[in-house]
């Protein structure tokens, strides 16, 4: 990347800049003609100069070029003879010509502006791409000093004005300079003294204003730095939010941020003051010139030295002058501004000369497998403070060997793993991998053949399948064939086809997306995450729209019901029956009797839903339900009156939160003894919502009798008729059909688990799991679970699940070597051992091709599972133990059990 913005722009957009310059030059004569024409119109037809007699004509449009060969008598050659026009015709033709010139000039401006805009945006896109590319090429060590939010704000916000400027960088000064020059030449031609006045005032403007603006620049730079730091700080606060809350330091953060905001305000205010002062001065100078024109020009005209046509032409030419001048000064201001920004961004994106940027990961042909040995030869790694993390460490292992690394946290195990994963680089010594220095291997080889997992996990926001496949996306495997917009970015190679399929299925041992599910299932089973995924899946909607699969779920529903009955547990689930009131569901649920798709029908806001309100009114049930809501509110408020908000007695209250108490108290007071129909609609909605939330089996207030239930059922049916069967707002419960909007579990249940029965939830869940297994629905549920959204950074998973997922991702890629640093630290010993055993079995090649493992242990007991154990202390190997490979696996198991006990 270029250190100078102008050179960067020139090298990238030379041809476009020259073209646009050419267009601008081509537009200038038209501009001049347009300025010149009014003079002819005013002096000619209007003031009747040359048309003194009624039938006199003037000769227009004669075009002559100088005759360099001397054949003609007057030294010119006539190209067009021209026309003789009378006064009215002259006026019409000249005015029409003026109109044409206005349009031509407008079109020129339109073309130039569009072209510049596109050029600028394209360059901005390119510049941003290059910055991101650079971030991706920073060696890992660089990221210790980088704040993510600062980088983001630099790439997103700080280079933004560059885009607007790039189109103008060369063009604007030429364009505006040309305009100014045209106007000045024109004025000078008309009248020398007026021209000189204009020129001298311009000179003052051109010299004084930029000088004044220097201070503005300094302030601008401060503003940029403080804003960037603010972005970085906010990012930090978000990242650190847990410890801010757990340590109760949020007020300190508030104070710090307020302090920063005050500082930024100070800078910005100073900036405004200065900016508007300069503007004031600029306007003043600009306005002095017309004053002189009117004064001096008027004087000259009165004295008869200047004709009025000339004066009007001069003034109208000058009218067009201040704005190009102002624009040119603005351009200069912008130039300084973006140059500063560019320099500052470049400073941030440059690294020390000593730091090597990562080579591009492009690789031609088949990526070779790693075979042979991994050897670390007296490797020393220093941290930034000079502490020896590894101290002349030497060790050799076969690439397919299984090696455990143990030692204290300062032993060096973590650094050893990082060195092999190329996350730390040795300051001394050599790492030889498969006969070649590690740093000479293309990243494409080590990045695909070595899998790395550490105790820290991070996943971008995606779902489980995406998180797992993330490790298989190196280059585009099957190009999309669509020529898309990204192609205008000059990337390295032409492999930026995002629309194509990037997943390397073959590397995971699959042939395509369909067989990939089996591979995902296998690795998730190894890390014991499969059952979690199935549980996620139960609470999600079905992925496929295949009616056959939906049919199977409906079948399973009947079988589940049947088993429930046979187990004598039928009272545990009250099934949804369109003709019966479900006592385990709330009144609202019973009315809409389906899964809301449209937010307007969600249970929280049902009280204000106009369709339902109309149906209730038609059935004359609204008054009754509102009265019911009032009664509930009165009872609850009476019983809970006077208790503190945090009293545990509130925990079991489900109809109302303590925070809602004041709202309902006020509403009760507002409504008073007023009759229905005289209450405001929002109060009605509040009480309706309360009534809609009422579940007879849970709340036990005895508010539903046979008659009322029948009328509620009537409302349900009327409501459904009103909405129609096939509609987009609610997916109705139907015992015989699949409910697309409901989760798989709800589809199997098609009812509500009863309140007030001990262990009901658990017993039902167990039975559902069993039905899913017996009917071989597990793959379908598993697939739905793969689409579970893991949240930003994978935060919707537990720490244990995240670690398991990271290990699964590393295994899915079928590496030649797995390097791991405490990958299962969050798990309990038993789970660690079970998973490690399965990983090692896979590594031995019992299922698929084998691979080597270098594992820095989270638990000493795991060492028993490995045939070789390295013990590290103070950055060097102090013990290298090989166990007899003959040792029976069962003995290992036994020893392990003894040690972990």
């Amino acid at each position, binding site marked *: 990347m270029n250190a100078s913005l102008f050179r960067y722009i020139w090298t990238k957009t030379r041809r476009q800049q020259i073209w646009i310059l050419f267009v601008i030059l081509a537009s200038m004569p038209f501009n001049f003609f347009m300025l010149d024409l009014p003079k002819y119109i005013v002096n000619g037809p209007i003031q009747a100069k040359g048309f003194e007699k009624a039938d006199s004509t003037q000769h227009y449009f004669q075009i002559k070029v100088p005759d360099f060969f001397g054949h003609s008598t007057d030294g010119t050659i006539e190209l067009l003879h021209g026309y003789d026009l009378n006064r009215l015709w002259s006026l019409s033709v000249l005015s029409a010509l003026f109109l044409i010139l206005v349009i031509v000039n407008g079109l020129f401006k339109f073309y130039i502006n569009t072209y510049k805009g596109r050029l600028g945006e394209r360059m901005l896109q390119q510049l941003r791409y290059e910055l991101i590319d650079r971030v991706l090429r920073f060696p890992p060590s660089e990221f210790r000093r980088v704040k993510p939010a600062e980088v983001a704000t630099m790439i997103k916000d700080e280079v933004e004005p560059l885009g607007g400027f790039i189109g103008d960088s060369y063009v604007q000064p030429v364009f505006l300079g040309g305009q100014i020059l045209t106007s000045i030449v024109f004025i000078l031609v008309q009248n020398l003294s007026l021209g000189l006045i204009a020129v001298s005032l311009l000179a003052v403007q051109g010299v004084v204003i930029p000088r004044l603006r220097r201070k503005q620049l300094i302030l601008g730079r401060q503003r940029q730095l403080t804003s960037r730091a603010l972005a970085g700080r906010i990012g930090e606060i978000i990242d650190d939010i847990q410890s801010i809350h757990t340590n109760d330091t949020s007020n300190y953060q508030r104070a710090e941020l307020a302090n920063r905001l005050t500082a930024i305000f100070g800078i910005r205010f100073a900036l405004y003051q200065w900016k508007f002062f300069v503007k004031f001065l600029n306007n003043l100078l600009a306005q002095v010139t017309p004053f002189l024109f009117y004064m001096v020009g008027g004087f000259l005209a009165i004295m008869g030295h200047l004709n009025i046509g000339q004066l009007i032409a001069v003034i109208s030419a000058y009218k067009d002058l201040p704005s190009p001048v102002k624009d040119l000064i603005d351009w200069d201001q912008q130039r300084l501004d973006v140059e500063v920004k560019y320099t500052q961004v470049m400073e941030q994106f440059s690294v020390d000369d000593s730091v090597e940027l990562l080579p591009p990961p492009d690789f031609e042909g088949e990526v070779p497998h790693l075979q042979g040995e991994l050897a670390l030869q007296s490797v020393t790694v220093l941290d930034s403070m000079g502490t020896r993390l590894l101290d002349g460490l030497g060790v050799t292992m076969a690439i397919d060997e299984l090696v455990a690394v143990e030692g204290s946290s300062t032993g060096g195990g973590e650094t050893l793993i990082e060195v092999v994963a190329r996350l730390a680089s040795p300051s001394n010594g050599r790492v030889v991998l498969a006969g070649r220095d590690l740093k000479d291997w293309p990243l494409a080889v080590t990045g695909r053949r070595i899998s790395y997992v550490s105790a820290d996990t991070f996943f971008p926001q995606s779902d489980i399948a995406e998180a797992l496949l993330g490790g298989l996306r190196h280059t585009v495997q099957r190009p999309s064939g669509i020529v898309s917009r990204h192609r205008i970015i000059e990337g390295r190679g032409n492999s930026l086809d995002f629309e194509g399929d990037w997943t390397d299925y073959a590397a995971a041992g699959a042939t395509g997306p369909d067989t990939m599910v089996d591979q995902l299932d296998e690795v998730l089973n190894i890390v014991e995450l499969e059952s979690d995924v199935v549980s996620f899946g139960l609470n999600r909607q079905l992925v496929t729209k295949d009616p056959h699969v939906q049919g199977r779920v409906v079948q399973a529903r009947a079988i589940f019901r049947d088993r429930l009955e046979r187990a004598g547990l039928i009272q545990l689930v009250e099934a949804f029956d369109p003709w019966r009131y479900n006592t385990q569901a709330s009144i609202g649920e019973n009315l809409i009797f389906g899964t809301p798709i449209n937010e307007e029908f969600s249970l929280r806001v049902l009280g204000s839903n106009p369709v339902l309100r109309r149906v209730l009114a038609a059935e004359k049930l609204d008054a009754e339900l509102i009265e019911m809501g009032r009664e509930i509110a009165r009872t*609850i408020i009476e*019983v*809970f009156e006077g*208790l503190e908000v945090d*009293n*545990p*007695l*509130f*925990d*079991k*209250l489900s109809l109302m939160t303590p925070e809602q108490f004041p709202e309902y108290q006020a509403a009760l007071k507002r409504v008073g003894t007023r009759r229905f129909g005289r209450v405001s609609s929002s109060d009605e909605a509040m009480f309706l919502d309360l009534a809609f939330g009422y579940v007879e089996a849970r*709340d*036990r*207030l*005895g*508010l539903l009798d046979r008659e009322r239930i029948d009328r509620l059922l009537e409302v349900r049916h009327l409501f459904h008729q009103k909405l129609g069967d096939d509609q987009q707002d609610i997916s109705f419960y139907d015992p015989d059909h699949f409910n697309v909007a409901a989760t798989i579990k709800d589809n199997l249940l098609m009812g509500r688990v009863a*309140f*007030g*029965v*001990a*262990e009901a939830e658990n017993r039902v869940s167990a039975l559902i799991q069993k039905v899913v297994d017996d009917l071989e629905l597990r793959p379908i549920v598993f697939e739905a679970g793969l689409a579970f959204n893991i949240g930003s950074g994978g935060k919707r998973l537990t720490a244990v699940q995240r670690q398991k997922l990271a290990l699964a991702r590393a295994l899915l890629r079928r590496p030649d070597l797995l390097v791991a640093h405490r990958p299962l630290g969050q798990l309990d010993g038993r789970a660690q051992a079970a998973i490690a055993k399965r990983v090692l079995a896979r590594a031995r090649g019992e299922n698929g091709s084998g691979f080597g493992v270098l594992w820095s242990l989270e638990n000493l007991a795991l060492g028993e599972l490995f045939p070789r154990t390295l013990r590290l202390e103070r950055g060097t190997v102090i013990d290298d133990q090989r166990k007899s490979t003959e040792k029976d696996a069962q003995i290992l198991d036994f020893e392990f059990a003894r040690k972990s006990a």
Partner: protein
Amino acid sequence: MSLLKEDVEVLREVPIFASVELSKLKLLAFASQRLSFDPGQALCREGESGETAFVIIQGSADVSVKAGQSDIKVATVGRNDFIGDMAILCDMPRTATVTASDKCETLVIGKSQLMGLLRSFPDMSIAMMRVLATRLERTNRALAQVQRERDQLN
């Protein structure tokens, strides 16, 4: 009559709550939960930590304690009996296993709900102390009886 009112009536018949004001009992009924147990289902298990106490509304349950490998049935509880209070008052594991012997309808009171009520209404604490003292007195008497019988045997 609503179930909730019925719950209040039940609570009133429980000795511990007998002298508590009606409004407080309403509050307690609101904050507690009806739970039914099938015959053979355990209300609580000896040794587990307990977060709830039960008032039996209907049916009966067997109380048993572990003795070596087998369980010895020590008592039967029925309507209006209050069980599980020891574990939540003293923060100790359940001292006995209670198993529904026929279909058992109970009112479940959470530990924090009961403690909250006791803290807010000292009258209730006194009533409860009285009941516990009576129980202790009964236990003392029973113990004296056992000692006497043992002495006679010796």
